[in-house]
């Protein structure tokens, strides 16, 4: 491949493309949409986080300021956590709006995460949300198609193609030249926007951007760069295939509608039909069945705890629970909580596994549809994907278990068996409880979850590269 030829084609294409008024107008609209999306996305994130922090603080204050209380009362008073959004959710909100925002943690049972934004929506949300990711995933490819559909057919229609080929320029050079010109044009348009966006982000976050967020952003640049290169290559190849610009435009539009609009909806929910999950009622019933086999944690005399009683009595060499050096009722609470938490985790784990299988469907579809691969990769990188949601759910359960068991241990050790219910713990103990810190899925883990999407994107890049390298259309 002769690079001077490629360069010539690129510089020629650059001059040509900006002569087209439609292209300039589209670019203008797109830039405007991107900035709007950045602004709106940021506003959304800020509004949510400000409210969340306010209410989270109020819950924390109320917890610390509790009066003297019996530990088991406090276990029922419980705690509420409000789910923090990922720092990059302003860029790609992923499943954030469909995931619950608050969860009530208490003894004996695991509540659902409630009040997702979607539940408050009149139905508008189902059209999608305006985020920079949405513009980059849906609309920029369309712009690339508009830039590319005349790439070869235009030369054909003008009769300049034979001229070019007779000047010792190979098909390979033409196809790469055209593709590279589209890529460089798109990059030169988007990079300034990205830089301004980054600056805004930096200023708005008061310069508090973690190294993690920064690497994620860099990776996003890579992902979208790759995606745009694939789109550019596809548009040039389609243009090379057809005789007329009209046909190539039509084909590219059909590809866009099929791959970007129809397929995502069709594929994801097919997974949901195939991999069935229990309804909330069934789910609770299954847990309830297992737990009722284990005994009622509020009733230390439940015959199902007889085995535990026998063992405990034997261990401490006493004949009655009253003679134990600790509170037996509290002890049963402690043991039963461990059992019920295990049962819940088992059932919930099974459901989440089904959800993961449902999602696998769309992930596999990414192999035939790079849009799906990039969409999932982008969500994962932004920390707003299913894995992040799942990660939060487990952390909430872990935290619940931690504080409830701490309370149960206090019950066992600090509350005497006699007159159990009338005793209280001193209120200063409440400030000795850990606070909830959401640990996001690490960047490496996010990518590992989406390894299929990474492979799909690379395979597509390889295919397009091979296409540009080997394709020699019969028509001139």
């Amino acid at each position: 491949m002769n690079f001077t030829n490629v360069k010539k084609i690129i510089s020629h294409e650059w001059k040509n493309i900006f002569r087209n008024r439609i292209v300039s107008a589209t670019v203008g609209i797109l830039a405007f949409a991107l900035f709007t999306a950045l602004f709106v996305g940021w506003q959304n994130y800020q509004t949510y986080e400000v409210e969340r922090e306010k209410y989270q603080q109020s819950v924390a204050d109320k917890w610390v300021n509790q009066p003297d209380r019996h530990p088991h009362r406090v276990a029922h008073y419980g705690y509420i956590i409000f789910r923090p959004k990922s720092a990059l959710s302003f860029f790609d909100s992923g499943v954030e709006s469909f995931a619950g925002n608050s969860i009530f943690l208490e003894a004996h049972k695991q509540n659902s995460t409630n009040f997702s934004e979607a539940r408050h929506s009149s139905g508008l949300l189902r059209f999608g949300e305006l985020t920079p990711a949405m513009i980059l995933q849906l609309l920029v490819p369309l712009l690339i198609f508009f830039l590319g559909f005349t790439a070869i057919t235009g030369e054909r229609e003008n009769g300049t193609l034979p001229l070019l080929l007779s000047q010792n320029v190979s098909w390979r050079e033409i196809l790469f030249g055209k593709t590279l010109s589209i890529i460089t044009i798109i990059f030169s348009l988007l990079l300034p926007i990205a830089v301004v966006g980054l600056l805004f982000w930096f200023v708005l976050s008061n310069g508090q951007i973690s190294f993690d967020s920064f690497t994620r952003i860099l990776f996003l640049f890579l992902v979208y760069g790759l995606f745009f290169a694939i789109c550019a290559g596809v548009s040039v190849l389609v243009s090379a295939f057809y005789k007329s610009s009209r046909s190539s435009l039509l084909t590219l539009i059909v590809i866009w509608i099929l791959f970007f609009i129809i397929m995502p909806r069709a594929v994801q929910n097919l997974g949901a039909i195939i991999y069935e999950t229990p309804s909330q009622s069934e789910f609770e019933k299954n847990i309830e069945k297992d737990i009722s086999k284990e005994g009622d944690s509020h009733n230390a005399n439940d015959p199902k705890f007889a085995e535990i009683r026998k063992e405990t009595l034997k261990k401490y060499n006493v004949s009655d629970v009253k003679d134990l050096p600790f509170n037996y009722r509290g002890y049963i609470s402690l043991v039963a909580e461990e059992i019920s938490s295990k049962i819940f985790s088992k059932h919930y784990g099974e459901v989440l596994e089904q959800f993961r299988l449902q999602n696998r469907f769309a992930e596999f579809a990414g192999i035939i549809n790079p849009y799906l691969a990039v969409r999932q990769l982008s969500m994962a990188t932004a920390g707003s994907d299913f894995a992040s949601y799942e990660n939060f759910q487990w952390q909430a359960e872990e935290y619940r278990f931690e504080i409830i068991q701490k309370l149960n241990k206090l019950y066992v050790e600090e509350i005497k068996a006699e007159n159990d219910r009338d005793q209280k713990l001193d209120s200063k103990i409440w400030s000795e409880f850990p606070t909830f810190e959401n640990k996001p899925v690490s960047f490496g883990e996010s990518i590992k979850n989406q390894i299929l999407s990474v492979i799909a994107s690379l395979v597509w890049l390889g295919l397009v590269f091979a296409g540009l390298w080997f394709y020699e259309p019969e028509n001139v």
Partner: protein
Amino acid sequence: MNLKTFTRLELKNFLNGRSVLVVFLCIGLAVAYAVYQGGSLAEKQSEIAAQTPQMQVDHTDRMLEVHAGKELADFLYYHKFYTAHEPSDWAGFSVGQSDVNANNIKVTLLTLEGQIYNSELSNPTNQLFGNFDLSFVIVFLFPLLIIAFTHNLISAEQESGTWSLLRSQPTSVRKIFWFRIGLRFLIVSLTAIVLITLGCAFLGTAFDGRFLYAILLTLVYFAFWFGVSAFVISFGKGTTFNALSLLGVWIFLVILAPALLSSVVATTFPVSESLETTITQREGYHEKWDKPKAATMERFYKKYPQFKDIPIPEDKFTWGWYYAMQETGDFESADATERYAEKLKQRQNFTEKVAWVLPTVNTQLQFNEIASTNLESHLEYLESVREFHSKIRQTYYPHIFKNAKLTDVDMKKAPQHSFKNENESNLLNGQLLALTILSFVFISLGFVRMNRKNI
């Protein structure tokens, strides 16, 4: 040339294109798939609702076994009462918000506000990608079909050179143009009517007023898109210009504008009342443990004076006091709950107003309304759960205050909940009028411009 021959020729010309057949085949397949997917989801919801009575019986039996010999009040701490939102006959037509909102809430006799907003076990990724149902095919895909069939009505003739031939005919080209647009409107509408009828037959939706309304809505929505297309064509530009402009309008109306709005709604009307309700109901109940019982009871007696004469000793735990405390959790969050409902109403109103100028949102929301899969329908279900909860309170409080044993009451005769809303009447509304006006505006604009440009 008379009208009949012209129609025959035009039809022949239109249907001869191979691509037209492919397009029809595709839209047929899309409808078939939409019926499958929408139907599957609605069926799953129906199944859940159908299983609910049996699940209630099983649950009650299990609880009776586990908690045998207890006091009734103690038992009722554990016993759940099942409710279900049975999907309407039309739910499969437009899944709407029904996959997001809970449809089988269970409540115990405790504070209601802490239970009523419990959510479904659902995969947020499914909800994010959205559903491929009949309303999606009509709102998203049919406009593309309309654009494909109309964008080159004049430009194709101009570009193929038959335009001057057409102009030399005695009939004015304007008339021919409107005739061809009209014919395409008829063809697309007929296709849609046939496909929707078949789809509805497969879904088992009731052929009542809703069917007629859905058809009417679809036709007006199509008229809007034909109007937009005529308007764009009236600029007299080339095929590519028309195609790209119409695609641009489609992207704006289907993707950009609704997405922008949805983000604006989320920021302008943040529903923090939901978080507030969660906090206040919990505090409202729990703080009562640390307060004199008389104060709690006094508040409780305002609503239930009939229990006034039953003594609640200050130094002893009584179940009457316990449930009174639970209910005060509801009393104290009532204000936040009201503001929560108010906020949702504000969101709904705002969306409806904006829908006046966004035919896509307008049509989708109306389909959701027909199918009773909208927010309003969910709120009605929640209201029915509230009524049900107040009914079980009224049923069991007297027994609780009498310190009844579990054996004193037949739990199998507990009140039962059922809810289904079929939105059969009051369908005609301002939203349809708005859509009609908008369609009319674009058709007229196209008409006026054509006349002025003397095409």
